[in-house]
């Protein structure tokens, strides 16, 4: 149930950020061709929307197996070794994303003392997207591990 809600929220986040990205870039194009001055804030806004779109979608991509892997060697492993490597890969990935999430919080703190050049929003808002990315990857990493154990 919680996972369904999370997945729905991430999908909505991805969709809204993508529409924001398309919208901001469209305004940028329109302003350049049809207004006297190009709006400098649109480039920054499109970057921000892009970061959030990627962060919302990163966990969903893990859930739906969009990350490319190399399985030519793995296919040659005996079944037992495959099971062990699967668990090792999942645990290592979880460790990686947990570390990334922890240090993203520090990074967000660093961002609070500077603002973006044209929109003047704190950079911590942009850096927050990395925490979001790490957390969604971490959650779906844990879900994947739980699923594999359940299957056994």
């Amino acid at each position: 149930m919680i996972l369904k809600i999370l997945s729905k929220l991430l999908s909505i986040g991805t969709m809204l950020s993508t529409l924001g990205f398309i919208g901001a870039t469209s305004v940028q194009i329109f302003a350049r061709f049809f207004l006297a001055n190009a709006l400098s804030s649109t480039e920054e806004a499109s970057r921000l929307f892009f970061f959030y779109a990627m962060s919302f979608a990163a966990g969903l991509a893990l859930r739906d197996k969009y990350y490319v892997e190399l399985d030519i060697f793995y296919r040659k492993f005996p079944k037992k070794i495959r099971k062990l490597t699967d668990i090792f890969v999942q645990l290592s990935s979880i460790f990686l994303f947990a570390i990334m999430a922890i240090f993203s919080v520090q990074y967000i703190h660093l961002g609070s003392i500077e603002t973006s050049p044209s929109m003047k929003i704190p950079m911590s808002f942009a850096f927050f997207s990395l925490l979001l990315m790490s957390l969604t990857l971490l959650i779906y990493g844990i879900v994947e591990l739980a699923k594999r154990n359940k299957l056994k």
Partner: protein
Amino acid sequence: MIALLVILFIICLVLRFPIAFALGFSCLIYLLFKGIPLLIIPAKMYSGIDVFVLLSIPGFILAGNLMNTGGLTEKIIAFCNHLLGHVRGGLALANVGTSMLFAGISGTAISDTASIGSIMIPAMKKEGYDSDFSCAITAASSTVGPIIPPSVPMIIAATLSGLTVGKLFLAGALPGLMLGVGLMVVTYFIARKNNYPKYPRSSFGIIMRSFIDTFWALLMTAIILFGIIGGIFTPTEASIIAVIYALIIGFFVYRKLNLRNVYTVIMDSMKTSASLMVLVGFANLFGWILITERFPQIISEGISSFSQNKYVVLLLINLILIFVGTFMETIAALLVLFPILLKVAVTVGVDPIHFAVIAVLNLIIGLTTPPVGVCLFVASSIGKESIGKVSKASLPFLSVSLVVLILVTLFPQISMLLPNLLMP
């Protein structure tokens, strides 16, 4: 310490870590061993993704997927069939032609193999073509896509080298056409030898009607290219114009798009893009460690001590890239190797634009190099044919790709002609 990083990365790949996570995890262990503050992980991830040119990738992927969902693949296939169907082996030639036209839309080889193969391989088998040949030509022709603009690997190469995307797009055009024409010539001779079928010639009216159907897709490629080359739009703006254009064509001309399938296409494209951006972020961290450890200089000195001859160096680089491209996904390989090898190539006098074309060409040839080329696997699974047979049938096409690679390597003019002419 650099050995630790590289060995760990290779072990992670062997254990079937996703390539992005293999980069991240090997970096994490390295940083822990070296006692480097781990704050560098989010910092390098952010700076890696925060590159303006990269913003164009989700747009190009989305535009391609919208066009594909809008029924474009079938229309391109129909046009190529009407145009080439009367020649012996016409369906196989149409397969190559479709990949050349589809290249402007998709930009990645594996998606070309999957989308075109799912229609063409069953159709070819039904018409009496050998199953292994059908799979092999589909896999081989799909490698034309990442060279002919707009090309995702070329955008990545631009990001890594600071070169302009427009110049790189133009540089890939002629080699892409050579590859496509070369594959068509070999296909024709194989078709004649095996007496593959041909059909009655389509009337001019039918050909023109099917051309008008595909014209909208070709126009999208033209808008993107001329917009970027003419300095009218940035690559990111061009990608969003392509998205809006694809939506208009899909809703109002082809009438195959609706809100439901647009939602699915957007989600699918963003998940593909996100998986690439996580890869780009970790590759930036990996690259930073390699630079701090002077790895590019070590490789450069190693190759220079072996030979100072430009062509020997390029031969060595070609061999490394084809080998890596056989095992590793194109963009991942590009992110890890391109900055290192570019430095080596530039020191022996190779133009960076010329080198970008060589690198991308090598890596996509790797996708169809037996026995582990990824496109061969995709095609063989669609055609339900053994990988061994498909690998054997792909050898003539691989030879064509290698000949084109040799020509592109030896004659920089092939890559440099269009950029020098149109973007001096």
